[in-house]
């Protein structure tokens, strides 16, 4: 087997990281090597999220790590948070997705839009992994256009009555609590969108695995149905208001995904480089051929560019000056880059590249989902188009 993963650092990126950021990265990297890599291939083939890893991830503080210590979180800066996502996705996009959803899409909205009681109740439990969360925004007919959602929340004397269906929900089946986004007004009133904390054991709430995935197989993806699902009045996130609220959550998640793409690309490059040195064809290592060197040079170049761009994005986020359009650029660039790197690595690996024993094809298949979720590549193209022209094409 290959040596332990030591990262890809052609431009001495380490010198741009603080000691604490490197230490966080090293902890996650070591955890992935020791606990995730031995089980991920089989989990992927079996189509099972490796649940047994949750307590270890929680104990080390991987969930909501950039939220404050007073709520049981690690209180890291956003660069360190990004490095966690990078290293988790070096292992598998599904595992990174799990942590992204728990932190950026469940803990973040409770932190940003919740009451103090909600924060004190939910955040420590979610950080400790004793509760698992999911984020119910996307609907069967409303993916890139979440503002069109038809899930409703009606205020009654007993509380809020939720009705609707959500689809492509990461962690849906294993979640004990869900952040559900619904319209409290008419279906064309996007300003009436509010968030609700819905425990999974609420009557009228059901989650069902989506079967037949050829991507993110080690991740739980589910459909959620809300049928006269009654939650207390204080289940609403009081500071949520309009489509902007879930989009703010998505900005957090996409920020982590941008880092994650680097991790997946590094894993593929590392595997391809190692294989190219060892695999002998026509009497010499394939790494000594120009075609494979071209692949490796392209991968290294694109990874290095993404590293520098994403670190600066993190520094802007920590300075409080990052704008969502910049996150779109990074998510769009990095995931597309990772898709290309995974495909080229798989090709360099030849026939061996289709085996689960190697990682590039698993990453390649995973990244097709990542390319499509959290704002498709095309939507981010249009967001950037709008940002520079001032003209919306969607």
């Amino acid at each position, binding site marked *: 087997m290959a*040596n*332990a993963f*030591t990262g890809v650092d052609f431009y001495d990126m380490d010198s741009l990281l603080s*000691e*604490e950021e490197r*230490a*966080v990265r090293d*902890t996650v990297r*070591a*955890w992935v090597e020791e606990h995730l890599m031995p089980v991920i291939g089989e989990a992927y083939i079996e189509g099972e999220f490796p649940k047994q890893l949750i307590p270890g991830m929680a*104990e*080390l*503080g*991987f969930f909501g*790590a950039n939220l404050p*210590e007073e709520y049981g979180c*690690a*209180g*890291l800066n956003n660069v*360190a948070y990004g490095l*966690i996502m990078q290293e988790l996705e070096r292992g598998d996009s599904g595992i990174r997705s799990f942590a992204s959803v728990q932190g950026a899409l469940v803990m973040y909205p409770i932190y940003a839009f919740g009451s103090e009681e909600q924060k004190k109740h939910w955040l420590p439990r979610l950080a400790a992994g004793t509760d698992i969360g999911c984020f119910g925004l996307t609907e069967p007919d409303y993916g890139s256009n979440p503002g069109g959602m038809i899930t409703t929340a009606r205020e009654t004397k007993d509380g809020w009555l939720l009705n609707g269906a959500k689809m492509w929900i990461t962690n849906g089946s294993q979640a004990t609590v869900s952040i559900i986004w619904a319209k409290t007004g008419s279906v064309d009133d996007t300003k009436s969108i509010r968030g609700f904390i819905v425990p999974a054991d609420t009557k009228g709430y059901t989650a069902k695995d989506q079967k037949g995935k050829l991507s993110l197989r080690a991740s739980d993806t589910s459909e959620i149905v809300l049928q006269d699902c009654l939650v207390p009045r204080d289940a609403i996130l009081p500071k949520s208001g309009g489509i902007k609220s879930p989009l703010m959550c998505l900005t957090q998640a996409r920020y982590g995904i941008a880092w994650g793409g680097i991790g997946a690309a590094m894993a593929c490059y590392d595997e391809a480089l190692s294989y190219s040195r060892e695999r002998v064809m026509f009497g010499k290592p394939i790494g000594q051929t120009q075609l494979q060197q071209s692949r490796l040079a392209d991968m290294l170049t694109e990874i290095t560019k993404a590293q520098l761009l994403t670190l600066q994005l993190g520094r802007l986020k920590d300075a409080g000056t990052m704008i969502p359009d910049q996150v779109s650029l990074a998510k769009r660039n990095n995931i597309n880059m990772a898709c290309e790197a995974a495909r080229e690595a798989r090709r360099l690996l030849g026939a061996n590249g289709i085996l689960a024993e190697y990682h590039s094809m698993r990453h390649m298949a995973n990244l097709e989902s990542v390319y499509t979720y959290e704002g498709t590549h095309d939507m981010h193209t249009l967001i950037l188009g709008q940002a520079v022209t001032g003209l919306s094409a969607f």
Partner: protein
Amino acid sequence: MKVAVCIKRVPDMDLRFAIGSDGKALDPAGLKFDIADFDGYAVEAGLRLVEQAGAGEVVVVSVGPAAVQETLRKALGMGATRAIQLEAAAIPFDGMAVAAALAAELKDGGFDLVLFGRMATDSANQTVGPMTAHLMGVPCVTAISKLDVADGRGTAERQLEGAAETVTFPLPAVVTIDEGLGRPRLPSLKGIMAAKKKPLDVRPAQLGTASLTVDHIALPPDRPPGRIIGEGADAVPELIRLLQTEAKVL
């Protein structure tokens, strides 16, 4: 229970490395540094001893330049209580120089146990622990794989070739740690943040006299290429002859 753990900052020998132009040390370019492997086990052992005792402290100590503070903070991130850097321009190669500094620091510290890794993964001298014990005037047990402490005495197990040896000794004592006591825990993210706020004292190292100097280091020679001595049964006599006379395994 008061435990000191002496740790060394070493280059990661799993990465590719080169010998520097002076031929006496590794080329620092591209090296990554970390706590020496067995020293990580020693930190883990110290943390477990104090956790089992329910009270006490784990003090991590390292000799060397400012860079060793990063290694000390890693141990603080794992859960050590406080750290001491014994400042020296470089980490001396001669174990006696290091042991003198450590003994001077630790001898009046009131420690029940002073732990070391059984050897540093770069120099592999295995000397600093025993030398420190000698200078402190306390017993020393080396390369232990199990350790229990009760009523002012320690009981340690050592793995020998084909046998296990159990020794008992009075505290305070110096013990050097092999792998058996439990894998070093990873610093948690909260631990990493907390480490920044824990005390890290810096004092000049009272280094002992160094008698040893590295003359030169060299990489092992490349393995000679394999060769084909023949095919089928006809090749067997020659193969046996070479295994007897050249490889000397028969």
